[in-house]
């Protein structure tokens, strides 16, 4: 559907709803991807979905109804069903009307027409090149190559109306030869911006260097995190940051706004239209903006719902789909070369889970490459092992940061963390 057709459906919902408070969202999503494993294509997909989501409120109660029925003739029937639900809902002591009129939505250029066209040949050929490289090197290739787009129109009964569209191109690639393995995740708004062939070539070289793994000797090591490894830890901090659970004593951030929670060289922000492209609004139609969450180690802002913000005097904030850690200059190679003494280099972590949410302590495994580094040189690969760490404690001991790299909707630098007992 075109932008105008999507907005026409939204306006029809707003017009025909017989309650004062309405938010309607219509999303159109196409995702086309090739999946491969064991040096063969295992899935080749092209999926398409349109979904209408309607929130109705009468000043006391609210309800949410979503459906795949998308035509203006069906709207009275859809609204009647949603109204039946609303009538039976309980009054909500935390009821909030839709966001006020006059939301100023950032204009975010996150669209690439070629990527939206989702040409099956490009992604199939990329998968084939990864598979052929693996075969040539006695390895197996597995991963996913895809292109997607999303068009979203939103309207509120308070008078806001907005539209946003975005594309996403991505490749997740693992090459392995038994235990030796390596991994790369690439993403961008445009397919042409993905360095697919460079990644395939580099990952194959990295598998070679992962041969002859040795058991890790217990001791104290500096930790060198490649961007992907650092990136794997960040969401657990973000998920723990919400203001209300913190105020209710449920998270590690309870009572800590304004305090140092990491070292002074740790700054985490969200940006909506920089290197990373966020979303201009959330599901309430609330306008997004750039936010700094942790500034030079100090917790300066926390995501907060409109209700909790009104109750506590905070600013209502949400994460607009992106997170970025500030970095410095230099590549992972530069960081390795500058690391004194004994260190471990990590490519990626796996199966990270909370051990204790209140402490923000995590467990997980290493995956796809751990290497012993001595006096700035990679000595040999190490077998995977389990770790139990507190990320805020780790990020309180960052000795050096490199240049950030994009990993999906995150931008994260490589880093050296001070001596850690393992």
């Amino acid at each position, binding site marked *: 559907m075109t932008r105008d057709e999507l907005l026409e459906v939204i306006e029809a919902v707003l017009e025909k709803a017989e309650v004062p408070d309405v938010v309607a969202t219509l999303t159109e999503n196409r995702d086309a991807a090739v999946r491969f494993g064991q040096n*063969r294509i295992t899935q080749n997909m092209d*999926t398409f979905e349109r979904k209408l989501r309607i929130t109705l409120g009468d000043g006391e109660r609210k309800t949410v109804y979503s459906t795949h029925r998308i035509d203006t003739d069906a709207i009275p029937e859809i609204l009647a*069903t*949603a109204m039946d639900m609303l009538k039976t809902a309980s009054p909500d002591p935390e009821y909030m009307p839709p966001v006020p009129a006059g939301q100023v939505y950032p204009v975010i250029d996150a669209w690439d027409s070629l990527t939206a066209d989702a040409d099956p040949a490009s992604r199939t050929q990329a998968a084939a090149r990864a598979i052929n490289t693996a075969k040539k090197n006695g390895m197996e290739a597995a991963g996913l190559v895809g292109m997607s787009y999303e068009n979203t129109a939103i309207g509120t009964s308070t008078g806001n109306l907005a539209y946003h569209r975005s594309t996403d191109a991505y490749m997740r690639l693992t090459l392995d030869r038994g235990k030796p393995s390596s991994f790369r995740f690439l993403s961008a708004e445009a397919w042409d911006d993905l360095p697919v062939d460079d990644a395939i070539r580099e990952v194959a070289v990295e598998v070679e260097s992962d041969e002859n793994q040795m058991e890790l000797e217990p001791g104290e090591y500096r930790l060198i995190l490649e961007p992907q490894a650092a990136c794997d830890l960040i969401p657990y901090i973000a998920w723990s940051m919400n203001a209300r659970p913190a105020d209710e004593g449920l998270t590690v951030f309870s009572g800590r706004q304004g305090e140092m929670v990491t070292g002074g060289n740790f700054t985490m922000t969200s940006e909506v239209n920089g290197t990373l492209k966020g979303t201009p609004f959330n599901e309430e139609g609330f306008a997004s903006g750039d936010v700094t969450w942790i500034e030079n180690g100090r917790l300066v802002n926390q995501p907060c719902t409109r209700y909790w913000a009104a109750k506590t005097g905070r600013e209502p904030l949400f994460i607009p789909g992106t997170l970025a850690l500030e970095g410095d200059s230099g590549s992972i190679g530069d960081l390795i070369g500058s690391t004194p003494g004994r260190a471990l280099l990590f490519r990626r972590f796996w199966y990270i889970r909370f051990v204790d*949410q209140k402490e923000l302590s995590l467990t997980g495994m290493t*995956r796809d490459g751990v290497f012993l580094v001595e006096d700035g040189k990679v000595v040999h690969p190490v077998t995977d092992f389990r770790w139990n760490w507190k990320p805020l404690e780790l990020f309180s001991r960052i000795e050096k940061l490199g240049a950030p790299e994009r990993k999906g909707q995150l931008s994260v630098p490589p880093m050296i963390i001070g001596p850690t007992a393992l």
Partner: protein
Amino acid sequence: MIDEMRDLAGRIVGQLRYRSVDYGDARVENTDLESLTYRKQRLAESDFQASHGVGIRVLVNGCWGFASCSGFDSDLVEKTVDRAVSVARAGAGVMEGSVRLSEEVPSIGHYDGPCERNPFEIPRSEKLDLLARAADIIHASPLINMSWSNLRFERKRRAFSNTEGSLVSSDLVFSMPTIMAYAVLGDDMQNRGFQEGARIAGWEWIEQADMIFWAEKCREEAIMKVKAPESPSGVMDLVLDGTHLSLTMHESVGHPTESDRVLGWEASMAGRTFLNIDDQEKLKYGSEIVNFVADNTMPYGVASWGWDDDGVPGQKWYTVRDGIFQQFGSVRETALLVNRKNSRGCCRAMDFASFPINRQPNFYLEPGKEPITPDDLISEVNKGVYIEGRGSFSIDQRRVNFQFGGDMFWEIRNGKKVQPLKKVIYRSKTRDFWGSCDGIADDRSFKTMGLLTCGKGEPMQGARMTHGASTSRFRNIEVGRGAE
């Protein structure tokens, strides 16, 4: 509605035959989902999702093509048929196709899952009243700072047809109650929740699960935990109840025995397995008393769908028998590759928009045949921990090295439960752990857990399966706190 869905699936397959694909199937789905959530003593969410659409899978020269669309609009469905064929041909033009499906007898039929009282016909006021009462009970203590109570009902109607002549359908109702209470004391927070999850059943499961009983139990045990001493450290024995084991077995038995993992198809995401194809019927997986039964005909099991998304009927088999690994759970595409003639019927997609993949079946640890109670098992432990319910969980990509927490812990000393504990985790390796099992209680302590959100695949798909076990004992396991 089912008849119309079967007709549509049949018509799509007719279009696929016209396009001369080597194989084709169509899944037509219609799902209603109601979710009511109390956060503390307030209705925080009242959601209803009405979803319907079509997923079409074709084989051209041994290459898959899959396309889906939401809605049943005939023009859109026809375009979706074209897209499925188009992407299959794109694959066939680049790579030599390798897909070979096991030969299966075409199925024709319909399956209604067990449902005595349709939850969509229960007045909403009755559902909200139950949630409100449960929330009031949970918050009867000032130490409870937070709680979630939820009722989730899903009616999934599905029709499947393929070019080999299968035409099957099912009508399944999933019901799931959830309770979680959070106690805060000083700088600590501990939670406790209802642990048996979802069933293919109606409102009768909500009544049987008894949320009022669990509301009080969760409140009291969350408080007990937050006041309890922390875990001891060292090597000791574990006695684990069925709701706890549901997760340990899911991660360390269910996933490693999926056939797509041994083939390397999950190498980039969910991971591989420590098992090899030649390990079937040979490898010692656990002690001689360990028997795992896979069962996609299990009553109330959330993977008991009648037929899977290959159109293969639900089956029952041993995954592990007398401690020996028997065979992988498979789909039509993997069966021949793991040296089996037929599929075990483990092919399922999250929804119509997802490509169906190899998923875990329902499976359970067979109860002991001797009359043994959990107390009998505890009475023979000098130093150990008794654990109920699921907590933290993590396992490596080959499914060997794991660490688990739990939901409620009791210290065992000299054959008796002596005090509650908190912050307990244990670590082991899959075959060591199941090899250390020296006691399984009889079926009087058998409990099941129905999971709706097992993540696997790329793009990630959530899948559902039920696991069950009686309380069991494991010797000499490393226990400690996570940060140690």
